[in-house]
């Protein structure tokens, strides 16, 4: 996972993005070229009477298109953890859907706990009865680093230091 840390005027921002090598333009070209070849073959055989090839070619290209569309919908997925003076803002983009969560730095607590039945750890932010798992896009070492960093920034003393 690509993880970038940025210094902002008010603090620090963590941006996590999965690695994506295929842009929307290439994805479109990929489907179109696969469709062109497959449909050309299917139409050629249809011309000789073997029209049942056509629906199979159509279904298959549709499946390829759906697979790429699924990936493209998640192409811009990201999680931003913005640590500001008084607040921590978590902004998530999942399949084009944006959600935002704010926590007060004074009140928020975090804990790192092993995910049940798994080898990875979960990083959970808590405040006022709300809980949120953050850093899902990160690897374990990256999550550990984020946790160490957050530990320094949460709670009454840390928040009041600045």
């Amino acid at each position, binding site marked *: *996972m690509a993880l970038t840390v940025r210094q902002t005027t008010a603090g620090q921002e963590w941006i996590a993005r999965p690695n994506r090598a295929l842009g929307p333009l290439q994805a479109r070209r990929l489907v179109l070229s696969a469709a062109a070849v497959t449909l050309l073959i299917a139409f050629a055989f249809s011309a000789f009477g073997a029209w049942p090839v056509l629906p199979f070619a159509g279904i298959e290209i549709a499946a390829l298109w759906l697979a790429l569309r699924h*990936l493209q919908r998640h192409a811009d997925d990201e999680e931003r953890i913005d640590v500001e003076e008084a607040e921590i803002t978590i902004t998530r983009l999942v399949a084009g859907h944006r959600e935002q969560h704010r926590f007060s730095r004074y009140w928020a607590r975090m804990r790192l706990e092993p995910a049940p039945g798994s080898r990875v750890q979960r990083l959970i932010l808590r405040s006022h009865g709300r809980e949120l798992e953050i850093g899902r896009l990160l690897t374990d070492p990256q999550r550990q680093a984020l946790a160490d960093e957050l530990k320094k920034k949460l709670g009454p003393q840390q928040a009041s230091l600045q």
Partner: protein
Amino acid sequence: MSHATTAPHDSHDHAHHPSGILRWLTTTNHKDIGTMYLLFALLMFFVGGAMILAVRVELFQPGLQLMKPELFNQLIGVHALVMIFAALMPAATGFANWQIPLMIGAPDMALPRINNLGFWLLPPAALLLTLPFILALFGIGDGAVATGWTLYAPLSVQGGLGVDFAIFSIHILGISSILGSINVIVTIFNLRAPGMTMMKLPLFAWGWLITAFLLIATIPVLAGAVTMLLTDRHFGTHFFNAAGGGDPILFQHLFWFFGHPEVYILLLPLWGLMPHVLATFSRKPIYGYTAQVYSFIAIGLLSVVVWAHHFFTAGMPVPALLYFMYSTMSISLPLAVLFFCWIATMWKGSMSFETPMLFAQGFIVLFGIAGLTGLVLADVAADAQYHHSYFVVAHFHYALFAGGIMGVMTGVYYWLPKWTGYMIDEKLGKLHFWLTIISFNLTFMPQFFVGLAGMPRRIPDYALQFAEFNAISTVGALILGFSQLLFAYNIWKCMKGDAYGLPKAESRAWEGGESLEWELPSPPPHHSWETPPVIK
């Protein structure tokens, strides 16, 4: 279920991690699925092998000793279908699952759940293919498909219930192949590590990419053909019935439009694997990377325009015969480039001959024989004599056993230390190699000669003059078949490395290994490349 860290929508899977049988039923981890594909392929390799050993024993002497011709016909057809669709293709897909993510620096395949479905379609398909044998024992139907694997109409239109089972099975296998192909394509395009441009892609991934595109282009044709067969059989259509205005030759065109690329579908991943193995054990970089990539592409393109050379004798206009002859022969040009690059990779290298390298050498020599005898068959005038003779049988076994299965064995021995974390038992591996290569030639070399002398294929009985060579061939086949138990035992030993005191494999299990998978520990962690490597 695994927890893919690639996408947030998968993260809820963190919560449960089933164990036991459920782990394998529900796994979305590319390594687990790769292992299942490979073990399934190994099992079916023995199933298909047992069938053909029975056939070879029947052919030990002229006359009918062991079985009726009907069963003989069923065994040869199902042997081919099992070996192609249930052994070789799953083995290649197992390689893809295990290795493509490791080699391109991806955390997993791009569509993990589709990946799981793709595998679990295979066991029911294999069951459907072989079930009619068992049903026949209970008096239901007359056994499995008895038309040979090509299912030629009109014979298959008249065939028994085995044909319907085969049609259904082929549909399921086709869906599985398409799902696998889509997964390989999107994984390679979307999940390459930063900096890994297409022209830095490992050759193994390139070979698989062309295979995936060939499957996408040709599977609908096969699916259409068997569907038309089904409707001809049961729903009163006449696609292949001349009396009803149909054309039986159309089936041959449809079948081989898929069937010929299928040969390259099976072989391209293994041609992609060869340069890695040769470079590793020659301790030299791969020679002619770009030339090999373009050769793969050229072979892929040519493979879909040469299909009719499989039925030159069916009757075609002379210009069509000439076209299919010359286009077929032109495939030898990109293949010659590949052979040149393989040999040049080894040239003046510091070579050592561990088991995978031995198999790679065997592959090159024997696959070379397959290519040269293929040129003979591509010649229209010569093919008129050789068509449907044992010469063809020997030719495609040099291509698909020596090129296909020995290629898979090369890959298995090469990557087993990576997969299991233990080095292979070299002594056993070398014994397996020598037994395989000697008995393989003992089995199939005589078949070239009986073929040249005129022995037809797919016939359980033969003229007395072919008796000696057939006896030799059967002895070879029995040795070949039983030596494969050593292969299974060697894999088992490696999987249980501790119990057998095998040395642990280092990350770079083979000294000369250069591709990305050798940067990871052996065995790699359940989730590898969570942080993509950066390719310079």
